[in-house]
Each structure stands twice: as structure tokens, then as C-alpha cells.
């Protein structure tokens, strides 16, 4: 945990530097792009701090999720609206088909997990990133999948430190957080959420959050 804190603070410090760079550029010109980049950076830093806080609270035993019904169409409309538009990025295909109309989960924490995964996928993607929703009837769980068309996860990462590949700057925070949030999604009959990471047969990385 201490290593994770140090690494995250290091990341956040770097992110603040990046933010300053973009703000400088924004000051000089009247181009909107640097401001959008700055906003993106703010979202990243905010996310890191919130995630760190969640891990801290988990350690204290006081992390409690707010599971509530989410209308999936509305939920993804909001995510799309909140996701900052940055030029020259791979195209994001937001889900358009909803296998079930609603699902109960913590909308806020799951948003952080998905945005992390999305940022990561965008960094590795060539042209596009897909977000897909599927319903697994046998396990009675909803799968939120972020798929990119990049090189996929390197083989050795599966063996040992899966985390690093997932992360913006490599602190491991994103994956640790995603894992935590997945596991905190439980049902009264004892089922639990989990992450699934694999390479697609057609190439590219698949990151799935499976929610019971």
C-alpha cells in the first residue's frame, strides 16, 4: 500500500506538471485544444485521488459502495457527455445496444473504472476503442467491456504484473482500484464481481468488468 501511495503521488505530480504545460499553451493562444487537454488532466488527477481515497477507506474497512439501479441508456449518455473530447484520438464507439434496460451497481465508482480503462485503451489503440455491454445469463452478470485494436496485453504481463499494462503512468493504482471495485460488488446470495483481461482472437486487448 505504501508503495502504491508513493507511486500515485508521483503520478499526480507528473499530471500536475502536464496540466501546467497545457495551461501555459492555453494562455498563449486562443486555440481551445489545450484547454480541453487541461480539463482532461484535471479529470485524471481527480480520478487518481478519489481512487487512492477508496483504497485507504477499504483498508480502514469503511469503503461501502452505493449500489442502485442504473438505467443503462441514461448512464452511458452521461458518460459520453462527461468524457472530454480530445482531438486526434482513436474513435470511441459507445454502446448502443443494451442487453438489459437497467442494472444495479455503484454508478460513480464504476465510472472511474471505465474511464481508467478507456484512457488506457486509447493509449494503445490504433484507430478505435469499443465499449460493449453483454449479459451473461448463466452467471447472471452484466459485462462491461472496453476493447481496443492495439497490440493487446503482452504475454508476460498475464503471468506476473498484469497491473502495469493497465495503467496511465504505471503506478498500478488503476488496476488495484478496478479490482477492489469489482470485488465490492456483491449480491445477497454471495456472488461477487470480477475483472477479466484477455487478448481478443482478432487482436487487441479486452478489459471486462463483470458485475453480478
Amino acid at each position, binding site marked *: 500500500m505504501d508503495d502504491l501511495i508513493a507511486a500515485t503521488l508521483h503520478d499526480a505530480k507528473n499530471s500536475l506538471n502536464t496540466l501546467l504545460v497545457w495551461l501555459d499553451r492555453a494562455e498563449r493562444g486562443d486555440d481551445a485544444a489545450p484547454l480541453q487537454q487541461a480539463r482532461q488532466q484535471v479529470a485524471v488527477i481527480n480520478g487518481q485521488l*478519489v481512487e487512492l481515497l477508496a483504497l485507504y477507506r477499504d483498508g480502514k474497512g469503511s469503503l*461501502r*459502495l*452505493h*449500489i*442502485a*439501479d442504473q*438505467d443503462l441508456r*441514461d448512464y452511458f*449518455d*452521461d458518460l459520453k*457527455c*462527461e468524457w472530454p473530447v480530445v482531438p486526434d484520438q482513436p474513435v470511441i464507439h459507445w454502446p448502443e445496444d443494451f442487453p*438489459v*434496460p*437497467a*442494472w*444495479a451497481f455503484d454508478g*460513480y465508482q464504476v465510472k472511474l473504472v471505465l474511464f481508467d480503462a478507456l484512457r488506457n485503451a486509447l493509449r494503445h489503440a490504433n484507430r478505435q476503442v469499443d465499449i460493449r455491454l453483454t449479459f451473461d445469463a448463466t452467471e*447472471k452478470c452484466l459485462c462491461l467491456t472496453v476493447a481496443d485494436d492495439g497490440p493487446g496485453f503482452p504475454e508476460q504481463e498475464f503471468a506476473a504484473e498484469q497491473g502495469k499494462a493497465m495503467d496511465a503512468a504505471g503506478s498500478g493504482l488503476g488496476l488495484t482500484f478496478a479490482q477492489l471495485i469489482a470485488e465490492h460488488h*456483491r*449480491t*445477497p*446470495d454471495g*456472488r461477487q464481481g470480477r475483472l477479466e483481461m484477455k487478448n481478443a482472437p482478432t487482436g487487441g486487448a479486452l478489459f471486462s468488468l463483470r458485475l*453480478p
Partner: protein
Amino acid sequence: MNAPLRDRTGLLIDDQPEMRSSVRIQLSDIGLEKCDQARNIKEAVERLSQRQYDLIICDYNLGQGADGQQLLELLRRRNLLPHASVFLMITGETGYEQVSTAAEYAPDDYLLKPFTSELLRNRLLRILEKKQALQSLYQHLGEKGDSRKALAACDALLAGNSRYGLDILRHKGDLLMTLGRHDEALALYESVLQQRSTPWAEVGKARVLAADGNESAAKAHLQEALRAYPNYLAAYDSLAELLEKDEPDAAQEVVERSLAIAPSTQRHRRLGALALENKDYARAETAFRRAVEKDRTGFFKSHDDYAGLAHSYAEQGKTQEALAALKEMGNHFRASASLDARQAAVESLVHAKAGDADAAKAALARALKAGQGDELDTSTQLELAQACFASGQDDEAKNILRGVAEDYQENEKVLAAAQRVFAKAGRDDEGGIFLDAAKRSMVKLNNEAVALAKAGELDKAIAMLTEAADRLHNNCQVAINAALALLMYVHRNGMRIDYLSKAHDYIIQARYANPEHPRLPEVETFYRHVAPPGTILLEE
């Protein structure tokens, strides 16, 4: 694209001027120009008493120990928030925990800071659209609503394949429970749970189990639900209520856990009451003190908080503190017979506890005098009975308790509270027999009156029932029977406008006592059948 909000009226509630102005700018960005502002609960209540707003945007943090959730509850209880109005709560991360878990009085939606204007616009439009689509249902919900009509609206909307099917099902479950149609409610919850687990259906199922008398299964189900949904306040509330009767220790612990999630005046009050019962006086003191002190607006306190605080002090031998709390109680509320009687009754009990019998008797005399001629609220009556027992005025105590038991013949909660008064006086067994007799005498009265009516002795039946109904304003059963007897008379013997008018008033009295009483529709239909056009109309 801002047109849908252009003609709406808004009220923005936030105690911080900077936040108000920044949200105000965002609102005007998205077309909502007509927007009033309020800085605190008092101003908000004033504004909302004067006029209706389409959109209410409220920050969770309102200063003065008050929050948006408390305001929302207050507005709903006082009927200041029409169902057509949108209530959007804005929160930071901490407030989000409390808003997102609010059980009974949830806002229409909540939005986490920081947010963009576009997101704000999307949310407001989305809620407006939903309100519009579900208007046929919403208009029948709430304190003055009509559960049967609301249920019919649910079915119509479900048949029309509304995209808000889930919200409708959730309301339908609540309505079926209110109307006592447990089997149908259970089937509804089971069918949702078969597809997926979700907190409201899990708790709904537990409530059905409890209502059908299967309390241990209900408790187990709620415990399991809480393991998966540790923030779902409705589950804590239901569980605490189930435990209250036989396991007050466990109930206290459950309320403690819910307080860790969302500290509210109401929960502190509940905790204080349980701690008093469990003889955990130090905890009772801090809980009631929190209830009294945290709410600096004064909107949420009740007589119970000060009375509870005084008892907590008295039980620990802190007589002076107890008396000071009672004095404070007098300063905080508008004068009323109930307030005076309650203050004096608790004072009498405090003195009795401290061994000062003379002071106890003097205070009791004041309490009884204050209560003469006025109808006192139930907690005051019970407190008064308690004080009578403590000063040896047993007959007076029993008179009061008989009145309460007859008035609340069908209300298990009030009857249990009356039983606790006996228990505290060390008369547990006597209480059981006494209350049972009071209850039975009411059943007997109703049965005899019905038998008389059937035998054609309507005048006698009317005399019996109206005497009881005029005395017992909270007894729905008696009011309904009185109205029925009067209507039967008119039906058989021809119009007597004074009887019709009295029947009308008893129906209103019955509605006030218990709007969901299963026999209400019967008497209402009979009234409309008997009352000719042009006479007193019974409103919906």
C-alpha cells in the same frame, strides 16, 4: 436547444455565495433565466410556501447543521413540494453517500460536483421528461394521494410499455404493500429478483415476509442484503424496526451502523429512544444532545428530543441538567397544550427520579391542568400516564391509557408504547391484561352496534357509535361504522340532511386517522350512493 428550459421557473438553494453564482451562471447557460435563490432552509421554505417552482436545484450542504436531504424531507412532509416539481440535489463526494442512500425521501436525481453545464441540462431535461411520462402516477402519490388510483395508474403505464418500467414496478410494490396485498407484492419482488439482485427488491421482499408474520426470515434476509448493500439505509431502517420489539440491543446496534452512514436528526432520536430502553443512558444523552444541538435551524427538532434528553440526564442523576433541558424545550417551540403538558410531565418524572415527591406531585398537577380540555398528542398522553404512575395516581394513569388504547385500537405501535408505560411502572402483566380489555371493549362496541343496526335498532346503534367517534378521533374503525349507521338510516328512512352531514364528517375523520383503511372505499361508495345531487359532495 435551450428552449425546454427557457420557460421554466427555478429555485437555487445553496448557502455559499460563490457556489450560488457559479451554478446560477451554468443554469443561465442552459436557458434557465428565471431563477430565484435561497441561502438557507428558512428562505427556501418561505419561497416554496409562496409559489411553485418547476425546478429546484439544491446543494447538499446548507450550513447551520442542516442539509439538503433534511430540507427535502421537510418539504415533502409539509406538502410544499408538488409532484410535478423537479428536485435535483448537488453534492460533493461525502454528501453523495448520504443522498444516494436516502431511502424514503429520495431526490429526483443527484449530481456530483464538479459538473458541466451540458450534464446539468441533460439531467434536468431527463427528469422533466420522466415526470411528464409518469404524471398519471405521480399525481396520486404522497400524503394526500390515493393508493388505489396510483396502483391503477401503474398498471396502465406498465401495460403501455413505459420505458420507466422499473420505477413503476418499484412504486407498484410499495403501493401493494400499503394496500395490504402482500401476495401480489411478493410475486412482483420475486420476479425482479429472478432476473437480477437489486437493493429495493431485496428489502421489499423482506418487508413482505415481515408483514406476513415471518419475522425471523425477514431479519435473515435483511442481514444478507446488508452484507451486499452496506449503504442501503432502507434495509437498516426495516431491520431496526423488526428488532425493536424483542431485541432492543440489536436494534440499537443497527441504528448505530446506519448513523455512521447518514447522521440525521431522526436517526439520533431513534437511537436515543432505544438507548434509553436499553438503559444505556450515556449513549442516550449524546444521541439526544446531537438531535437537539446539531439542528441549529430548529426545523427538525421535536418535543421527543428534549424529553428524551431530560430522561437521559435524570437517569444518570444529573437532575439540574435535566431541568435545564426542559427549560430549553420551552424556549424552542411554539406554545401549545401538548408542549406545556409534556414539559410538566417530564419535570414531574425527573423530580420523582431524584426522590423529590412533592416537587413531582406539583409538576404533575400542572401537567394535568395543562392537558385539560385540549387534545394532546399521543407521546404527551403516554408521558403523562407515566408521571401519574410515578406519583401514585394510578387511576388517572389508567384513564389516560384506556383512552389511548381505545383511540388506537388498530395501531400496534401505539399499543406497544402504552405497554411500555406499564412496564416502566413495574406493571408489565397488568398492562397486558388492561390493554387487551380496552381493545376488546372496542371490538365489542363495534360488534354490538352492527348487531343493533341489523336488528333494525338503528337509533341505538347511531347513539353508541357517534358517542365513541366523537371521543376517539384516531379510531378509524369507529368513525367508519358511525358513518355507515347514519347512512343506513338515511337509506332506509329517507333523507335527513343533518345525518348526511355528520356521516360526511366521520368519513373525513376516518380518512385523517388512516387513509389506507381497507373499509374506507365501502363507506365512500355508500355515501355517494345515498347522497343525492345537490347535497354535500364527498371530495375525492
